[in-house]
């Protein structure tokens, strides 16, 4: 497909996944992401080598991902906040067993059942592991339709390369919004690098085991350090961000995903009235792109974090800035979506030194 296609975010994600060589999708209905499993079901129904199962639960679907990933397939599941909570057990196992998989979270208002409106309350859950044990999950945060396509490809590549689960963190608004997208060329799954660790029957070799149980503490410790070294390598390699009008900025707004698009509109507005304001948009949430943000302290006077939550990523911003600059926060949780005008007013008053 060389021409741009107008598609909603969930469909972009599904199409990009198939083009990335994904041949196994397992999920359970939950709003606001149902268009993604529906897309996978309709496409996979016409493909001989692809598996779609609507599972009996989120728990079952993430465990089917474990099975398909262990068998060597590029496998994915998707859900929204409450469903992602249920998948956390399986995500911990994927990390421990070093199995590649892609998990999509189109976040909604929470905690609890919350609502089905777009929100960003799952930042902590996504970036701090989410399940039990000492592990991390790579978290990619697209903000545009094109980025959903590009990051979905990247998610499968990173998952395979590092043998680790990768989460794509979006929200209900991103899933519904239609934008023009240029898709990458499809990957033939058989052309992907051979996985020498899969369990697919032991023909012509010794039998293999994929496990996470290491009863002997020194062996479990060794495994934890091995994972830690992998996470360190990831931290040194993949952090990514967009910097918008930050070169001369005296105040920088930090926001990701849909919030970053609203913030960009706000930045645009306050720039028109002559304020030197920029936007820092993390594209990877774990690992968090701390270094370029810290570097901005050389000329930026203050940071304002805007999230569709009561304040979660703000902690990572403060860790990056290490107290050298003021970091303030503005957020609207629970599925309330701020307008650029609203955020512009907050930015403007922060710029002029008024507290929020």
């Amino acid at each position, binding site marked *: 497909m060389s021409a741009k296609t107008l598609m909603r975010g969930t469909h972009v994600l599904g199409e990009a996944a198939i083009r990335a060589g994904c041949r196994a999708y397992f999920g359970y209905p939950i709003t606001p992401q149902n268009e993604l499993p529906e897309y996978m079901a309709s496409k996979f129904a016409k493909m001989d080598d692809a598996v779609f*199962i609507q599972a009996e639960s989120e728990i079952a679907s993430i465990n089917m991902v474990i099975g398909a990933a262990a068998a060597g*397939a590029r496998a994915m599941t998707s859900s929204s906040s409450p469903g992602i909570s249920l998948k956390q057990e399986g995500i911990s196992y994927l990390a421990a067993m070093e199995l590649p998989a892609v998990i999509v979270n189109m976040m909604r208002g929470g905690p609890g059942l919350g609502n089905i409106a777009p929100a960003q309350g799952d930042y902590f859950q996504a970036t701090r592991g989410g399940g039990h044990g000492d592990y991390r999950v790579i978290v990619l945060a697209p903000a545009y339709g094109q980025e959903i396509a590009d990051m979905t490809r990247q998610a499968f590549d990173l998952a395979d390369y590092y043998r680790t689960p990768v989460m794509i963190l979006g929200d209900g608004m991103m899933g519904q919004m239609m934008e023009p997208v240029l898709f990458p060329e499809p990957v033939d799954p058989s052309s992907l690098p051979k996985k020498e660790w899969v369990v697919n*029957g032991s023909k012509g070799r010794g039998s293999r085991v994929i496990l996470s149980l290491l009863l002997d503490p020194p062996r479990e410790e060794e495994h934890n350090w091995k994972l830690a070294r992998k996470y360190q390598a990831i931290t040194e390699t993949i952090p990514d961000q967009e910097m918008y009008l930050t070169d001369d900025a005296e105040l920088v707004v930090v926001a990701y995903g849909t919030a970053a698009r609203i913030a960009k509109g706000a930045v645009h507005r306050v720039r028109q009235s002559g304020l030197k304001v920029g936007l820092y948009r993390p594209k990877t949430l774990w690992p968090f792109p701390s270094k370029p943000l810290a570097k901005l302290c050389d000329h930026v006077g203050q940071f304002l974090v805007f999230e569709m939550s009561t304040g979660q990523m703000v902690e990572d911003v403060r860790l990056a800035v290490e107290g050298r600059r003021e970091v303030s926060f503005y957020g609207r949780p629970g599925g309330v979506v701020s307008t650029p005008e609203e955020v512009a007013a907050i930015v403007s008053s922060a710029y002029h030194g008024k507290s929020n």
Partner: protein
Amino acid sequence: MKKIFSRPDALKDNPFHYCPGCGHSIIHRLVAEVIDELGIRDRTIGVPPAGCAVLAYNYFDVDMCEAPHGRAAAVATGMKRILKDSVVFTYQGDGDIAAIGTAETIHAANRGERITAIFVNNAVYGMTGGQMAPTTLPGQETTTTPGGRLQVRDGYPLDLSGMLALAAGSVYIERTAVTSPKGIIRTKKAIKKAFETQLEDKGFSLVEVLSPCPTNWKMSPKDSIRWVDEIMTKIFPLKVIKDVA
């Protein structure tokens, strides 16, 4: 000297860690013998439980992939759907398959997944030290049913195999016991038939094997066998529960 008895190829040369009088070692061997006889060792993948048999991969010389507690049927589903020519079996205890994994198991059976479950029922949580299982008998003493399992408080033994038989996707379900040579031969036949059902692409198959747990029952191996035969089989009768293979 002529060798007339040896370890099946599908078993590794590792001594079993199971307690004296436990049925797991026998059941492991039977599964391995069936894998050998069917000539499917290099296309078989096993999914062990969380429970006493979690270390099954130390014994089975086939590819294996661990599952979170109770989720073996879902893991096996994902695996088998990708590797259609493989033979995928789960090996699960009563707590794993009939308590925490009930949903995964029933829905795998209902979808008619081409997998085989070996369900070892010893009416108790073994590895965690003898707590009440879903299959614990009325009045049976466990560490969490002091004075015995009381119906009004603790509910009834769950007949998972009977429930699975109701699912239209299940094809072959049998309950056996490894308490006598006859029972062991019967169990092996059942396991073989269950694997054959999968090889013939017919649907979900399961063998429930009643198995003694002298350690947690606090009985001698001999008394444990008698307890299975005389008491446990009253609640869990040995029979072909479903055969539409």
